[in-house]
Each structure stands twice: as structure tokens, then as C-alpha cells.
């Protein structure tokens, strides 16, 4: 029952007020027209008793009063939108799949048509309509008229986003009223897996209300795509890899509208062909990969790939360390001798060169407690930093026992937090005849230490809609939707497109849907929901009908003189 959330006692009080008001009206004195007649003897015979309703006299016409009270009560209930208790606990959640898979011709139109039909035929107070595309959006709230839904759907097209209905249903399942029976009616092709459906509460019933997607043919497009550090070892280049199907043509690669001429290596896969484009200079540009010509399902005909900014880091070398480190810098493609703006410095402890820059300092055993001492900027748990640095800088590759025997001193690693990054190493370890300098771990450690000091942002090898990037926090914006994610949270691209990183670490997210791209026929996963018919008349309509019947009865009784 919906009486604007009136409790039971409120309904009872309303009925009492209604009955009392009608009773008083019934008792009110009638304003009579006075007539003088020759005789009233025939009128006395015509009326068994006076029809007048006189205040403070005995209550008359109980049947007329009951009839009137019934009519008034029914009208009140009808206007208040009375519903049966059976439907009181039944709620409907209508979900329109707006994922990229719905871009197949006709699929979205079929889903919206069924959705509108069902929205029309369900009680407005017990159904909601949600859009599940790049975002989850409430399309029609409880109580809103379905005409609003028609208007809102006109502006909608499937997003370039992976299907996320299943994830959102699982999220919703944790915060629902378990006393209410919820029927979830899905309009679209988003897959619903058995494992996920088994986690749904018992009072949830999930139905798919559109025909299963049939098999499609003749499509071609990208199945996946991403980048990887160049296998040639060059710091400033990356390898690009994509998997396509349906065509043997090499995908076109455009950068700022200009097609790149890049050598490619292909390899057949089960679904199609994997293309490997090696050693692409990474300068933060965005590549637009296309398969031409476009087909009936254009959602997978083009993808974006954002390349990282991989310029070499400029290293400022102390004169006293030129002989030791200059060859190392020149041999590493990630490093270059500083010419204008140094990004990090290599110096001896106590030198002021490159003050404020991240520094690799060569210290002496007499001044430093630890053979390796690492200072990170910011605050945090030292144990966590120690663990991270041990793996990241390659300490597990260093034979610390051999070094300790050679130096006759214990080799230890210390960590702390400070203003800027710094790595301190004993100069004894850099002795050209020493075990460390001659070991293969030395260039590895130095290279990793200098890269860590350079603090370049990592890059995402790939980004998929609906999946978070786990490597970094930061802030990204999209050209149309503003801030997509704030610092402190990993980016979870909701929609395919370019996300501009605040620090130049742009991310290009793609919505791959292999099932939709390959045109595979959908497999029945949840029960099918029949389209609701309009035959179910709402309870208020029956009440209005009953009121009309009662009015007819009153009319007949009035004309028969049974009621005044």
C-alpha cells in the first residue's frame, strides 16, 4: 500500500476522520424550502418518515451512510494508489545493457523496445530502470511516468564500455532489503555467469528479457591490444602488439593524423592474427589503430594506444666520479649526460653539486652505517620501503657475503624517509678491483638505482574499460567528462577513450568484447523473462470501477425512494 508512506495507524485515522466527517454531514440540517399546502395528509402517507437530517436527532438512513462511506473510502484508496499486499513486496529492477556489445545492428533497438513495453506494464511505484553502460545511471525512478523514459532513451546509444551488469548486480546484492522480492529484468546481451548468479540473494530473480544474441558473421576488428618494453632493450622505445581477426591486412597506425610506416611481424592465433610492431619511439604520443574499411559493427574497428614518455634522464656527474660513471651513463639508453636541466645527480657525500636533486651519493664506510642506504621522499613504513627497494633495485642479485668477506665489514641495507630520493653507496664497493664493481649485478644495480632516482612514471601495458589500472595513482581527465579519477585511487576507465594524465601519463582505454566482436551466439545463462502484457489492470482502476457500480446502485435506490 502506498499512502505516501502512511503507517497503518495513519490509514485507520484517515478512515475515522472520513467516517466522522460524513456522519456529521449526514446529521446536518437540510435547508428546506418552505411551502404552505392545503393539506399534508397525502404526503404523510407518501413518506413513511421525514427525510430530514436534523442535528442531534436520531441517526437516519444507515444504509445511505454506509454506501456513501464506501464510495468515499474507495475514492480515497484509488487516489492514494492502493496496491495489493502481494505486489507490495514485489519490486522490479529493469536494467538496460548499454555496453559496447549492444552496438550490433538492431540489438539496442530490440532491448529498448522490450524495456519500454515492460516499464509501461509494471506498477510505477515498484519499478526502477537503470542504465548499465560506462556508468550506472538511474533512467526512471519509482513513481515516474514511462513517458519520461522514452524521452531519456532518445539520447542514449551504447557506450564504448565493457559489459558490467554482472559486477553491478553483485555490488547491489550486498546492500538490499532482503525482505523484498526483487525481480531483475535484463535487457541486453551482457553475460551473466553461473558463479556470479550463485552469489545473488535468494530473494533475487534475474531474468533476461531480450532474445539471446544470434551468431553474427562478416565482422572484423581488434580483439586486444597493448604495449610492452622494447624487446631490443632500448629505453625510449616500446613494442606495440595487437590481435585482429577477420582480415589479413596490417592495421593502419596513425599518430596525430599521420600514418606511421612501422615494420610489423605477424603470427597466426586461434581467432585471427597477432601483430607485433617493435621499437616504436615512445614520446607520449597517442596512436590510432584502424582496420579499414569499417563494417556493420564499428565498435571494434579502431583502438587507441597511448605511448609513455620515455626520454632519457639527464644525469649530472661530479667531476670526481666522471671516470667511474661516465661510461655507465653513456652505455645506458635511459641515461644521458646533463646538458641543461639535470634530473638527478651522482656525487660524493658532502658535495653540493645538484643540491635538491635526487642523488646517488658515494659515501665512505666511516661516515655511513650501512653499505647501501636508501632515502625515499614522503612518509611511510620503513619495513615496506625496505622490502620494496630490495626487490626493485636488484639487491637480491648482489652477493653480499662475498662483499662482506672482501671488505671485512658487514654489508647492510638501510632505508629512511627524507625530502628527496637518495641512494648512498660506500665508495669501497666501487673499487674497480672489487667484487661488486666487477660483478654483473653492479650495472644492474646502478641502472635501476638511477632509474628509481629519475622517478619516471610507469606506464600501463594496456587499459580496459571496467578494470582498474593497478600500477599507479594519480589524476586523469577526459576531454568530455572532466575528472575521471582522483589521486589516491587507481584509474578505472569507465568508457573507451583517452584519459589525460595530470603528469603526462596518458592512458588510452579500449572496450574489447571478444564475444560480440567474433559474433558468437549467446548461451542461455539465466531464465528468460516473458514480455509483460498490459492486461493487468491496476488496483485503483478496479476501485474506480467499484465506485461507479456503487453510484449506480445509489442512483437506483434513490429513484426507488429507498434512500434520500
Amino acid at each position: 500500500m502506498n499512502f505516501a508512506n502512511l503507517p497503518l495507524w495513519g490509514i485507520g485515522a484517515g478512515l475515522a476522520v472520513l467516517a466522522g466527517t460524513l456522519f456529521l454531514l449526514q446529521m446536518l440540517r437540510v435547508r428546506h424550502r418552505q411551502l404552505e399546502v392545503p393539506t399534508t395528509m397525502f404526503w404523510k402517507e407518501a413518506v413513511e418518515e421525514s427525510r430530514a437530517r436534523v442535528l442531534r436527532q436520531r441517526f437516519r438512513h444507515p444504509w445511505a451512510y454506509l454506501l456513501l462511506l464506501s464510495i468515499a473510502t474507495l475514492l480515497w484508496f484509488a487516489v492514494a494508489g492502493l496496491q495489493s499486499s502481494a505486489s507490495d513486496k514485489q519490486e522490479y529492477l529493469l536494467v538496460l545493457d548499454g555496453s559496447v556489445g549492444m552496438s550490433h545492428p538492431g540489438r539496442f533497438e530490440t532491448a529498448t523496445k522490450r524495456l519500454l513495453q515492460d516499464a509501461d506494464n509494471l506498477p510505477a511505484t515498484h519499478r526502477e530502470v537503470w542504465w548499465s553502460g560506462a556508468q550506472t545511471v538511474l533512467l526512471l525512478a519509482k513513481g515516474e511516468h514511462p513517458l519520461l523514459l522514452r524521452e531519456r532513451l532518445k539520447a542514449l546509444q551504447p557506450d564504448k564500455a565493457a559489459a558490467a551488469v554482472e559486477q553491478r548486480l553483485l555490488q547491489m546484492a550486498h546492500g538490499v532489503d532482503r525482505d523484498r522480492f526483487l525481480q531483475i529484468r535484463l535487457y541486453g546481451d551482457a553475460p551473466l555467469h553461473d558463479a556470479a548468479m550463485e552469489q545473488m540473494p535468494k530473494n533475487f530473480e534475474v531474468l533476461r528479457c531480450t532474445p539471446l544474441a544470434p551468431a553474427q558473421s562478416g565482422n572484423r576488428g581488434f580483439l586486444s591490444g597493448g604495449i610492452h618494453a622494447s624487446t631490443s632493450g632500448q629505453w625510449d622505445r616500446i613494442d606495440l602488439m595487437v590481435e585482429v581477426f577477420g582480415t589479413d591486412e596490417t592495421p593502419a597506425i596513425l599518430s596525430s593524423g599521420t600514418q606511421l610506416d612501422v615494420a610489423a611481424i605477424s603470427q597466426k592465433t586461434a581467432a585471427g592474427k597477432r601483430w607485433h610492431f617493435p621499437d616504436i619511439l615512445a614520446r607520449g604520443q597517442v596512436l590510432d589503430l584502424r582496420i579499414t574499411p569499417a563494417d556493420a559493427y564499428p565498435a571494434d574497428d579502431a583502438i587507441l594506444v597511448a605511448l609513455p614518455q620515455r626520454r632519457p634522464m639527464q644525469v649530472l656527474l661530479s667531476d670526481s666520479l666522471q671516470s667511474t660513471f661516465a661510461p655507465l651513463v653513456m652505455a645506458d639508453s635511459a641515461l644521458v649526460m646533463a646538458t641543461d636541466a639535470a634530473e638527478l645527480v651522482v656525487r660524493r657525500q658532502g658535495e653540493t653539486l645538484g643540491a635538491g636533486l635526487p642523488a646517488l651519493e658515494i659515501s665512505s664506510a666511516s661516515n655511513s652505517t650501512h653499505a647501501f642506504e636508501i632515502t625515499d621522499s614522503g612518509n611511510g613504513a620503513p619495513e615496506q620501503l625496505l622490502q620494496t627497494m630490495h626487490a626493485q633495485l636488484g639487491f637480491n642479485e648482489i652477493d653480499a657475503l662475498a662483499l662482506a668477506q672482501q671488505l671485512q665489514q658487514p654489508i647492510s641495507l638501510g632505508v629512511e624517509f627524507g625530502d628527496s630520493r637518495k641512494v648512498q653507496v660506500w665508495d669501497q664497493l666501487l673499487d674497480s678491483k672489487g667484487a661488486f664493481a666487477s660483478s654483473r649485478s653492479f650495472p644492474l644495480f646502478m641502472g635501476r638505482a638511477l632509474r628509481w632516482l629519475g622517478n619516471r612514471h610507469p606506464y600501463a601495458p594496456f587499459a580496459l574499460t571496467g578494470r582498474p589500472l593497478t600500477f599507479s595513482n594519480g589524476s586523469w581527465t577526459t576531454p568530455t567528462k572532466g575528472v575521471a579519477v582522483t589521486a589516491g585511487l587507481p584509474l578505472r576507465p569507465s568508457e573507451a577513450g583517452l584519459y589525460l594524465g595530470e603528469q603526462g601519463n596518458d592512458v588510452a582505454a579500449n572496450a574489447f568484447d571478444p564475444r560480440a566482436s567474433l559474433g558468437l551466439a549467446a548461451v542461455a545463462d539465466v531464465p528468460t523473462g516473458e514480455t509483460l502484457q498490459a492486461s493487468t489492470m491496476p488496483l485503483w482502476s478496479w476501485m474506480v470501477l467499484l465506485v461507479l457500480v456503487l453510484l449506480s446502485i445509489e442512483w437506483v435506490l434513490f429513484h426507488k425512494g429507498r434512500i434520500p
Partner: protein
Amino acid sequence: MADTVTADDLFDAEFLESLQRLRLVAQRVPRGGRFAEQRSKALGAGLEFQDYRPYSTGDDLRAIDWNIYRRLGRVFLRLFEELEDLPVYLLPDISRSMWIEQPPRAHACLRSAMAFAAIALAQHDRVGVFPFAEDLHSPMQSRSGWNSLPLFAQAMAKLEAGGTTDLSRSLRRLEGMQLRSGLVVVISDFFDPAGAEAMVSALKRLKHKLLLVQLVHKSDRDPQVQGDVRLRDCESGVDQDITVTAQVLERYRHAYDNHARILTDFAQKRRIGLVQLDVDKNVVEQIATVFEGGRYHA
């Protein structure tokens, strides 16, 4: 209350002219009246031979039939039918209900009374007027002779509205006057609160010939009333609150028709005249309907 009636309203030359062809004819009036035109039960010196009877001392010798004496040797007298007058007692209803409408039905009532008075006086009958309401009101002296008509008119013009209608009481009062048997003409709307049955019972007890004139108005049977009304009985002053519906009207008509039927049945059984006189129409024309061939046989 409507205006009172003047004597000029009650009759005029045209009115009297239209009554000339109407006559009241009694089968036999009881003896004891004055010489007039009605056949009486008395035998005497009339013109029409009626019977013989033996001579007794003191009889008029001129009435002896000498031819019979010569044949039979016995003395018989020839008897002739006496012509006497018919006493006509007019009972106009002057209760309050007769005066509240426009025009008041008392006008028609008094004109009817005047018509019967004129008819009776024209044939030398004796006329008495006994207005009634809750009782008889100041009876007018019985008169005969055509010259009495203006006197009756002036007396009737002075009548005022009475109270409630009580025909039974009025008739008992009339009966108590021990009047010579004649024709009683009751002119009324017959809206007696005691009901039609009580009125008929009272009429049955009357030892006179009867002629009933029921004054009706079209609104009596079809009142133009709808909705919630308070009806005030003009005679008793009692209010009746009712809601007039089609069903109520139907029952009203049924009650009215039943009332009228009781009067009609009584008239038919007793073979007496009953005129339902529409007060909005010409009085004489309607009265004439009971005068078959211009004669009403009382």
C-alpha cells in the same frame, strides 16, 4: 390568505341565465312542506289523482266521489297528490384550506353554493346555507323565494376562513338540528385530516339526500414540488419535512387517488351525485354535468 369574496363576485345575470335550464327534482319530498313544485308524499288537494279512501267525519265534502257512492252505496274520498317544496341544505366548506391558493378555491365553492341556491329558489324550494370548517359556522336562515338570492350572496360574501376541516362533526351538528328531510349539498375539497373513510362514515349516517361537490385543483394530484421541502399544513400549522423524489411523488398520487376512489365508490353505491369540480374552470358548466337532461333527481 386570498382576498375575501364580494357579493358581486358570486353571481351576475349571465350566471343566473346559465342556471335557468337546471332543475332539482325530488322523487317525493316528505310531507310538511310548503306548497311548491316537488311531488310530496302528502295526499291532498293537488291536481294529480292519487288514490281513494273511505270518508271519515270532518273530511272535505267536495272530495267525495259521488259516482262511487251511487254504484256501491258507500262514501269514498278522491285523494290528490300534494306539491310541496324540497329543503336544500348547502354546506360550503370554509376551512382554511379553501382560502390559501390564488384564486382561492373558496370562490368556486361559494359560486357553486350560489348556483345550487339559485336553482332551488327558482323552483320555490327552501334553501338553507350551513358553512362549515371544524364545525358548522353561523347557519343562515332558511329562505325561499327568488328574492332571497341576493340575501344569500351578501351573507356568503361575509364568510371568513375557518380552521381545520371536520366534516364528521359538522354533519353530526346538522343532523342534530332535526331538519326536515331534504337535499344536502356538500361543497368541499374533502381534505379532512380524519381521512376519507371517516368522512364517508359520517355521510352515510346523514338522513338526507346527498350531492357532493369535490373542489379539485390540478396541483392536488400533481404537486409541483421537488427536493427538500418543508410543507406546512395550512389548517393545522404542522410542518412536514420531506425530500420529494419521483418515488415519493408516485406514492403521493397513489394516496390521493385512493382518497378520491373512496368518495367515488361511496357516491356510486348510494347513487348520489358527485361532481369533481375544477376550481380553475367554469363552475356552472361543471355542475351541469350531474343534471341529466337539465334535471338532477334527488
